[in-house]
Each structure stands twice: as C-alpha cells, then as structure tokens.
C-alpha cells in the first residue's frame, strides 16, 4: 500500500511514541522502586552530607581546579610561545611535552606525582601543591594547543598592518594579536576548564584528610557512612553546579566569537 509522505511521517512518529510509552511502562512495572528511591533519594543520607558537601567538598574542588587551571594557563602560554618560536629546539621541546601529556592518562600523572615522586626524591608536597601541579601538567598540554591555535588564527595581514604603521613586534602582539586571539581562545578555554574540573576528582587517590576532601572523595566517604547512593548523586549534582554554567558560558562565548568571525570573513572575502 502506497502511503503519502505526510502519512508515512505520521505513522513513523506514532511508532516512536508507542515504543517510548511501552518502555516507560515496562520500567515502571519491573523496577524495584522502593530500593531505587532508598538508594538514590535517601533523605537521611542527604541530610548528613549537608552542609559539608558544599562548604568543604565543593569549595575544595573549585580550589584544586582553579589552582591547576592557573598553573596550566601559565605553563600553556609558555609552551604555546615555544611552539611558535623560530628557535627549532624550543619547538621540539614543546611538541614532546604536549604530545606526552596529551597522550598519557591523567590518572598516571596523579600516581606519578602523588606516589612516584615522593618515593624517588624523598620529598613530599602538601596536597594543594600536588593537586595544582598534577592538574597543571595535564591541563597545560591542552591549553598550549588552544592558545597556539588562537594566536595563529589571527590573520597575518593584521600583523603586517601593525608593523607597517611602525609598531614593534612586542607592541604588535600586545595591541593587535593578543586581543584578537583572546576572543578566539575563550570558548575552547572554557571547555578546558570543564574537563579539568572533572579531572580534579582524581586527587582523591592521593589520600586526603577530611578538610581536603573534594567532591568525589566526599561522595565516596558518604557512601561508606550511609550505605546509600545518595551522597554520590549529590556529589554528581555538585559537579553539574560547576560544569553546566561553564558550558553555557562557553556556548555563549562561542556564539559571540562565531558572529565576530562571520563578520570578519565577510570583510576579507
């Protein structure tokens, strides 16, 4: 039987709704709701997490991430400039560093820094330094590539125009290249910050005191104490409290940069 295009679309949509309803009914009937509610939405367990999950864990996650991101930004900028250097050995060093730290799992970096380095060199950093360095190492490699791409995305004609007006290379970078690169870099940099926020959970490996707990470790301890999944869910929601606004910020900046780009392209076309 031949169906018109509209009828076929209608039938297909109806089929999809039918599957959806069936699925919901099946889950509703088959799932053990008491157990699930008890596990994820245990009010007592939740109450025991508050307020420390905010005042300690969330705050620490933000601190670790901020420290790591700050260090990553500094090191990343140096690496980006090295990669753009006319001195070849600088480029090689930067390339090796970036390839290495982009390629190895963050977990390995944390283990090396938390356990390997203290063993090998008989030194021990306090936790905030370790966290900053480990996250900084992981973040700097990605950040370096983001910065380099951003700087290179500024058209060469902009530099030539500035130099033609008598600006020195340094002045050109300061007044023409960096401000324009910044707009290009901001959205991907925000994404790096989101990734680093999640990577900060690896710090729990290093052995933390109560005051040093970040969200993942805090949730884990809550799980042990309450025998409930609720603390884990709460910790997860706390991550979303950070990452979702950052994601919106990133998309907002991206949209703005995109519009700028479009206008810019119209110019050079």
């Amino acid at each position, binding site marked *: 039987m031949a169906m018109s295009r509209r009828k076929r679309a209608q039938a297909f949509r109806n089929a999809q709704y039918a599957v959806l309803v069936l699925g919901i009914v099946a889950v509703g009937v088959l799932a053990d709701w008491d157990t699930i509610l008890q596990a994820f939405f245990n009010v007592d367990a939740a109450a025991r997490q508050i307020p420390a999950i905010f005042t300690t864990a969330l705050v620490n996650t933000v601190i670790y991430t901020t420290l790591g991101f700050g260090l990553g930004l500094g090191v990343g900028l140096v690496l980006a400039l090295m990669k753009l250097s006319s001195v070849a050995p600088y480029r090689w060093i930067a390339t090796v560093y970036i390839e290495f730290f982009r390629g190895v799992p963050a977990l390995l970096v944390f283990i090396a820094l938390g356990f390997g380095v203290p063993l090998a060199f008989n030194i021990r950093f306090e936790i905030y330094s370790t966290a900053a360095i480990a996250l900084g190492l992981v973040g700097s490699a990605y950040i370096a590539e983001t910065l380099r791409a951003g700087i290179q995305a500024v058209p060469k004609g902009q530099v030539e125009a500035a130099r033609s*007006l008598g*600006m020195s290379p340094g002045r050109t970078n300061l007044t023409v290249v960096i401000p324009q690169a910044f707009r290009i870099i901001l959205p991907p940099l925000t994404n790096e910050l989101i990734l680093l926020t999640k990577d900060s959970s690896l710090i729990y490996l290093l052995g933390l005191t109560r005051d040093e707990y970040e969200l993942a470790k805090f949730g884990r301890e809550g799980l042990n104490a309450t025998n409930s999944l609720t603390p884990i869910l709460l910790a997860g929601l706390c991550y979303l409290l950070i990452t979702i606004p950052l994601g919106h910020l990133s998309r907002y900046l991206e949209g703005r940069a995109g519009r700028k780009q479009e206008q810019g392209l119209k*110019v050079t076309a």
Partner: protein
Amino acid sequence: MNEAIVEVVDLHKSFGELEVLKGIDMSVRRGEVVCIIGPSGSGKSTLLRCVNFLEEPNAGRIVVNGFEVTDPDVDIDRARRGIGMVFQAFNLFGHLSVLENLTIAQRKVLKRDRAEADAVARKNLEKVGLAEKAGAMPAQLSGGQQQRAAIARALSMDPAVMLFDEPTSALDPELVGDVLSVMRQLAEEGMTMLVVTHEMQFAREVADKVLFMDDGGIVEEGPPAQVIGEPRQQRTKGFLARVLNPTHVPVTGAET
C-alpha cells in the same frame, strides 16, 4: 628636479629557489605618482613589500625618506612611520572601531595624546568621506569604505610616501570609484605615491611615471602616455592587449 623619496638599487629577492625580483632599479621623487603594472606573479607586490621591508631583500639597496631600510642597523620601526602602506585586503584591525584604527598607532608609536590623535584621525576620515563612520566597527563597513578607512589610517601617521598594493582589486566594481577618487585627490595634493594597480585608466590619468614589470624585472618605464599609450616593448603590448581588451585576445596556442 625633486629629491628621491624612494630609491631602489639592484634589488634581488628570492623565495627559496624561485627568483622573484631579478635586479630592480627605480626611484620615486617627492610629489611623484608612480604606478607599477604587470601580469600576475611578475613580482609587483614583492617589490612594494621590500620597500617597507615586509619582505627582506636578498641583495640590493633601498633608501626611503632618508632611511636605508636595507641597512641591518636601521631602526626599521622608525623608518616605517614615514611609509604608509595600503593592502589589497584592507587589514583594518577587526577588534577596534574605525576611529581607534586611526588613532592606535598615532598614540602608541608617535606618542600623540588622545586629543591630538583624535583630531588628526577625524581630519583624515573627513578627507576620505567617512566622517560619520568614526564609531563603526570595520565589519560594519563595505569593502570600499574599509579601504578608504585604511587609507585614512595610513595618512594619520603623516607619511612621506604612500604605498598601495592593488587597493581596489578586492572590491566590487561599483565601489572601486570611491577609492580611486580618494587616491586621485591625494595625488593632486602632492602626496608621493607608489601604486601597484590594474586600473589602467587611473594610471593613465594620475601617474607621472608608469613601470611595466614582467618576470621579476622592469621591462619598460616612462610617462603613461608612452608606456600605456604607445608601448615599445612586445611584452608590454601583449600585456596591455590582454588587460584593456580581454575578450579579444586569441586563446593562447590557437594562433599557431
């Protein structure tokens, strides 16, 4: 005769194996308008870019406005202050308003104060017919307006000579006239200009001297009435035939 503002002696420039300029000698005197014409790839842009050292020559000597730009010890940033450059792609600073485009180098390079820089900028915007666009961003302007703003930006540095690299080639045909009339007006005011262009009418009417370049050398030079009107060299004739009457050129190879 007026002093030479631009003096180029035996200029050679290669990109890797490719020799693009094969010994160029030329000069532009104060108040003179010199137009460079020639086929694509003949080295016109490269010559112009050597004059303000955006390209580094392999050999030869270039003196502009008393600065020997080819001298390794010259303060090139200082030399460039006196050389205005207008690009085919305009190259206005995209993150700055039109007015800021005109004032930024005045303030950072010439160390003029804001009031003076603004006054100079507005005077030059007026001159190119963009007085009301001071607050606009470059992206909001048409190509012709952008190019005129770029000319005003260069003029704001009070250059001794202006270099133009095909300033109208990136423009829609109906916008070319505005830019050319600004350049014409500059020439009438006595600005020293070195212009790479495909606009034969402009070269014919405005230039004091026309250089025809081909294959990295100057093939023919002289007043426009001679070089464009009655070219002596076969290569000049061929080029002009193609440019002035593109539809009547026999397809290469078909004539044999």
